[in-house]
C-alpha cells in the first residue's frame, strides 16, 4: 500500500486566504451592505405615500347667463367651466409647461409665464407647452355642476344636463 503524501505547497503558489482575513473581509462587507440598506431605507421616508392635499372635487352653480365660449372660473379654482349647445365641460387652467395659471382671452388661453398660447379647446398654438390643457370630468344635476380637478377626460367630452 502506497501513501501519497500531500505535496508541500511551493513558495510560489498564491497563499490561500487565511481564515481570519476571510472573516474580517466578510464582516466588513456585511457592515457596508447594512449601511447601504439603511441608507435606502432612510430615503424611503421622504417619499410621501399619502399626499396631504384636500379633495379636488367641487360643486358649483353656473351663473344664469354664461355666454357661449366664455368660461366661468369658480373662485379659488384653476378650472374654467363652459356651457354650450352640446353640453357642459371643464378645461383646466394649469399650464402644461410649468404649472402657471393661464388667462382666458377672446380666442383661447394665454400663459403669463413663458408665453404659451392655447385654443379654446386647450390645444397648443404657440410656445413651449408640451401638451394641450387638460379636460376634467364633470357631472351635471340641475343648475349645479360637479367638477373633479384630479380627473381627466378626452378633449371634447361634453355632458348634457
Amino acid at each position, binding site marked *: 500500500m502506497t501513501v501519497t503524501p500531500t505535496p508541500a505547497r511551493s513558495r510560489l503558489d498564491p497563499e490561500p486566504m487565511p481564515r481570519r482575513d476571510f472573516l474580517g473581509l466578510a464582516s466588513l462587507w456585511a457592515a457596508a451592505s447594512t449601511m447601504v440598506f439603511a441608507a435606502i431605507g432612510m430615503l424611503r421616508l421622504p417619499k*410621501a405615500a399619502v399626499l396631504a392635499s384636500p379633495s379636488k372635487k367641487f360643486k358649483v352653480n353656473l351663473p344664469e347667463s354664461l355666454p357661449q365660449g366664455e368660461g366661468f372660473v369658480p373662485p379659488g379654482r384653476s378650472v374654467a367651466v363652459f356651457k354650450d349647445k352640446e353640453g357642459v365641460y371643464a378645461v383646466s387652467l394649469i399650464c402644461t409647461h*410649468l404649472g402657471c395659471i393661464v388667462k382666458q382671452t377672446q380666442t383661447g388661453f394665454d400663459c*403669463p409665464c413663458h408665453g404659451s398660447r392655447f385654443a379654446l379647446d386647450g390645444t397648443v398654438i404657440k410656445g413651449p407647452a408640451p401638451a394641450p390643457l387638460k379636460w376634467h370630468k364633470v357631472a351635471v344635476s340641475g343648475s349645479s355642476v360637479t367638477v373633479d380637478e384630479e380627473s381627466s377626460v378626452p378633449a371634447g367630452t361634453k355632458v348634457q344636463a
Partner: protein
Amino acid sequence: MSAALPHTAIERFVANLKAIPNNLRAATLRGGTPNTDRSRSSFVFGNVFLHLHPVRVHRWSLRWTTTFGLGIMATAAFLITLVTGVLLMFYYKPYPDAAYISIKDIHFVVPTGRFIRNIHRWAANVMVVAVLLHMARAFYTGAYRKPREFNWLIGMGLLVTTLGLSFTGYLLPWDQLAYWAITIGANIAQSPREVTDALNLTESFDPGGLQKLLLLGSSEVGEEALIRFFLLHVMLLPLVLFGLAAVHFWRIRKDGGLVRPANADEILGPRTEAYPVFTEAPKKTYQLAAIVKGKTAAVGKGPENTLPSMPHLFYAELGILMLTAGICLALAMVSDAPLKELANPAVPENPAKAPWYFLGLQELVAHSAFMGGIGIPSIVLIGLGLIPFLDRETAGTGEWFGGPGGKPLVLQAIVVGLGSAIAIEAVAIQFGWIREWFPKAPQLLITLINPGTVLTLVYALYSVWLVKKHDSTRAGALGLFTCFLCGFALLTLIGTYFRGPNWNFYWSPADWPAH
C-alpha cells in the same frame, strides 16, 4: 518650591483668584503667547480652527492678482448669511401664510429686522457672484490641473450647494414671487416627463414625477414643500456646505498651496520688505516639508519665498471679510429685500421671475422645459467636471489665461460666445422657434431642439476647431469655458432686463403694457 508660597489656604485661594486671568490665558493658548514665527507656526498647526490653514504661505498666493480674494469672499459671505440667518430664525415660522406674516413682521416691526433681512439677502447674492467669479479664476489660472482635479470637483459640489441654498431660501417668504418661482422650479424637476410622455413611458418609468414628489412632498407647493425647503435651507444644505468647504480648504493645503507658475520665484524676485515683519526671532525657519509628503509649498525651493500665515494670511483674510461685510451692509442700506403680496395659487405673478442667476435658464426653459432646465445644465456640469481630466497639459499653469492661445484666444472666444448667443436669441425673438415654423413638429423634437441646444453645439464645434488649430486641449477648454460664461451672462441679462409680461421681449420695462 519657593519660599514665597502662601501658607494658609486662604492666602492660596486669594493668590489663585488673582492669577485667574493669566492661568485662563495659559489654559487657552497651549503653547504660550504666539509672538514669534515659531510659536505662531505651532499655534496655527495645533489649533483646531486654524489648522485648515497652512503654517506658511508662498508670497505668490498673497498677491492680490492671484485670487482677487474671491474664495475668501465666498466664505465671508457664507459666514454673514449664517449669522444673519440664525437671527432671522428667531421670528420666522415655516408654515404657509404664517411664514409670510412673520417675514412681514421681521421687515416692518422687529427692531433691526429689515436691516438683518436685507443683509441676509444681499450676502446670499454676493456669495453667488463670488463663487462664480472664483470658479472662473480657478479655471483661467489653470488651477484645476493635476494635483488639484479633486478640489475642482469639490468646488463644483460647493457651487451646486450654493445655488441650492439660494433656491430653497427663495420660497421661505411665501409671497407671490416665492410661490411662483418655486412652482416653476418644481415643475422643471418634473420635466423629464416631457420625454417620457413623448416615448409613452411615464406609466412605468417616471423620474420627473419622483423628483417633484421628493422636492415638494406633495403634488403642489404647499405646507409640505415649505417645511422641506426650510429643512434644506437652514440645516441640510449648510451642513453639506460645511463638509465640502472643510475638504476644499484642507485639499488646498495638501495640494501644495495655491497654484503658481513654475517660475514664480523668479517673477517675484528677491524679497523686499513690502510685507510687515513682526518678529524675526528666532532666525531659524521651520517648515513642514518633513511632515507633509508631496509637492509642499517649500520642497526643494528653500523657505525664502514663504511667509508665516500668522499674521500675513490672516490679515488678508480679515481684510476681505471686512470688505465683504462692508459691501453687504452698504447694499442692505440702499436696497430692500423684496416682499410681494401673499402667495396666491390662483393668480401667477406676471412676469414670474426666479432669482437673477436662474434667469438665463428660465430664458431657455421658455422654449422647452426639459432641455432648458435639466438637459443643458447637466451637460454644462458634466463638461465642467471633465475639464481637469481632458486637459492634462502643463503649459501656462498658474498664469492668468495661461496656455496656448492665451489672452487673444479668450478675447476671440468672447466675441464668438456673445455673438452666437445674440444671433440665436435674435432669431428666436424675431422669428419664433420650431413650433412657429412647423406647427406639426413632433413634441420630442420641440423638447430637444432648444435654442440652447443649438448654442451648445456651436460652442462645442468652435472648441473642437480650437483644439485642432492650436494643437492643444487647453486652447479648447479656454474657448469652451469662455463661450459658456458669455452665453450664461447674455441669457441672464435678457431674462433679467428684457423680458416682461407673458415673457415677451421689451427693450425697457417702461414699454410693459399696463394691466
